[in-house]
């Protein structure tokens, strides 16, 4: 039993979630808009047509506004690590230190050099070097996202490390294993490509507003063509990377997959729920139906989870209570092993304190046997290992439904723009107007699925959030939460008003 105020954990989580979600409004736009600027400028370089230069500079200005408002919002997350999540922060310092330092150094050099050329270098450097700098900013922005996603991937699937009981830290043993962690790779490809979709959707939104208003029509049409091609290719790629991400979840975090699908009883040839209403009164192990209403596609979940239609996909009940037939260990058993691990860790610490090295070595040896179940030793009940099913199910399905709409939207815009009749499609322009918002919703829903879906873990299987958190007063966390809400809301209002003002001015002013 661990004596942590649940409201402290919840407020600390809420604060982190709020900060991360705010930060993630700007990041995907930066990832995608930087490439779109590079595409527009490359066309300018190839054609020498001044209209493309004007287009490039317009989108570059919006990119700059987004970057300026978003920059450093991620630093707050690092503050929170040290204050609200000090146990966790200490334990992962050795793993996260290298990737985050690389990100910091990389971002600094890229931003100080190529970023300056991109904004200050028009007419000061050659056209070719300016275009090269824009490409470098795009590639650099995306590469700097690698490292934070490597860190996130490690939390979902901790590999390439060993726990040092002397220092209470996870220490990196294999850098390549951490960087090429399959969860991190699928996370990076899925996240960056979804950022491309989001930015393309943003370009559609702004361009459609111009078309509806009858302003800057040529610029809007040209912008739409490039954004539609980029968005179409990226949204198809997102479907593949999403499939890979789901496969990794099925292999490494089966409880998350079960929650994403509201699957309580595992089955062979499991169907994929296309849509449904979750029965929120349902609890693990009871006989109630999981859904009040559902539409299932037979056998597809088994195919996605294991690449085999007849394969077994475990449900929440199988994972919580175990399933001998399918050789699945229940949470109860893992809790017993986790408690043994903690008892041996305690024995190790006591032996060290008493300078009894043989006893310490023996305790450490026993601890290593059950080390990978350590986190389960902190759970009070097996059901605690289940994430909030409704939240995970709805966020996952919202992301998937929106994700499947984007190729259709981009395809339609590309078709009608190339045909020269996009301005006549009065039904399509309002759709385009809201595409950016839908992109943002899909982004946020995706992160809610990933992060709420892995609860109760801060580090999968090793450390639940209630152990990761610092024992602060709830009031202190509530106060800082309120401060963030005020500061971030003001910043968001500032960004939106500057962005809207610049859009209203149009491509003539930058």
């Amino acid at each position, binding site marked *: *039993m*661990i*004596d942590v105020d649940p409201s402290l954990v919840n407020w600390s989580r809420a604060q982190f979630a709020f900060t991360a979600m705010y930060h993630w409004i700007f990041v995907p736009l930066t990832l995608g808009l930087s490439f779109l600027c590079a595409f527009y400028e490359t066309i300018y370089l190839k054609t020498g047509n001044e209209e493309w230069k004007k287009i490039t500079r317009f989108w570059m*200005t919006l990119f*700059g*506004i987004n970057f*300026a*408002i978003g*920059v*450093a919002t991620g*630093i*707050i997350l690092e*503050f*929170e690590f*040290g*204050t609200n999540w*000090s*146990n966790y*922060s*200490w*334990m992962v310092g050795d793993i996260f230190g290298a990737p985050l330092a690389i990100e910091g150094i990389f971002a600094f050099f890229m931003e100080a050099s190529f970023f*300056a050329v991109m*904004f*200050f*270098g028009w007419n*000061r450097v050659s056209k070719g070097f300016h275009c090269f700098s824009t490409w470098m900013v795009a590639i650099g922005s995306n590469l700097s996202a690698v490292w934070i996603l490597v860190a996130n991937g490690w939390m979902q699937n901790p590999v390439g490390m060993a726990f040092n*009981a*002397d*220092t*209470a*830290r996870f220490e990196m043993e294999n850098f390549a294993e951490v960087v090429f962690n399959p969860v991190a790779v699928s996370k990076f490809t899925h996240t960056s490509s979804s950022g491309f979709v989001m930015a393309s959707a943003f370009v559609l939104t702004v361009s459609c507003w111009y078309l509806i208003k009858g302003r800057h029509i040529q610029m809007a049409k040209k912008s739409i063509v490039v954004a539609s091609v980029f968005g179409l290719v990226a949204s198809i790629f997102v479907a593949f990377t999403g499939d890979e991400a789901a496969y990794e979840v099925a292999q490494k975090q089966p409880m998350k997959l079960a929650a994403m699908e509201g699957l309580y009883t595992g089955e062979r040839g499991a169907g994929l729920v296309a849509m449904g209403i979750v029965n929120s009164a349902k609890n693990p192990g009871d006989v109630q139906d999981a859904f009040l209403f559902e539409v299932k596609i037979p056998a597809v979940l088994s195919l996605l989870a294991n690449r085999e239609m007849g394969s077994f996909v475990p449900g929440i009940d199988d994972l919580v209570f175990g399933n001998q037939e399918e050789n699945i260990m229940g949470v109860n058993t893992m809790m017993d092993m986790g*408690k043994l691990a*903690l*008892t041996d*860790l*305690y024995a190790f*610490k006591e032996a060290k304190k008493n300078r009894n090295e043989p006893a310490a070595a023996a305790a450490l040896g026993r601890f290593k046997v059950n080390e990978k179940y350590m986190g389960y*030793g*902190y759970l009070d009940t097996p059901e605690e290992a289940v994430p909030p099913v409704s939240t995970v199910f709805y966020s996952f399905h919202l992301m998937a439904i929106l994700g499947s709409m984007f190729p259709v939207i981009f395809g339609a815009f590309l078709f009608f723009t190339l045909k020269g009749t996009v301005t006549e499609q009065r039904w399509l322009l309002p759709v385009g107007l809201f595409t950016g918002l839908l992109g943002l919703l899909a982004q946020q829903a995706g992160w809610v699925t990933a992060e709420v879906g892995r609860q109760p873990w801060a580090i999968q299987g090793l450390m639940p959030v209630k*152990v990761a958190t*610092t024992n*602060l007063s709830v009031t202190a966390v509530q*106060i*800082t939460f309120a*401060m963030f809400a005020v*500061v971030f809301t003001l*910043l968001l209002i*500032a960004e939106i008003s*500057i962005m809207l003002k*610049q859009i209203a001015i149009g491509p003539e*002013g*930058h």
Partner: protein
Amino acid sequence: MIEIPAKVFSFYRDGFTQMTVGKTLWKIIFIKLLIMFAVLKLFFFPNYLKTNFETDKQRGDYVLEQLIRPVTNTN
């Protein structure tokens, strides 16, 4: 040799002086960083382990204590 640093300097100087939207953005960045580092970090987000313990050994011991709390609470 002196020409290159002078050119870099004038490149940045001209860039900053000729900014239009950028001037407002820099003001926002400056205010934001001031709030973050001079207010939030200083008064509301101290690093818990760095503030309360002097050495890494003490920090490690404290975290280990936290990790074995379920056992010490029952003993």
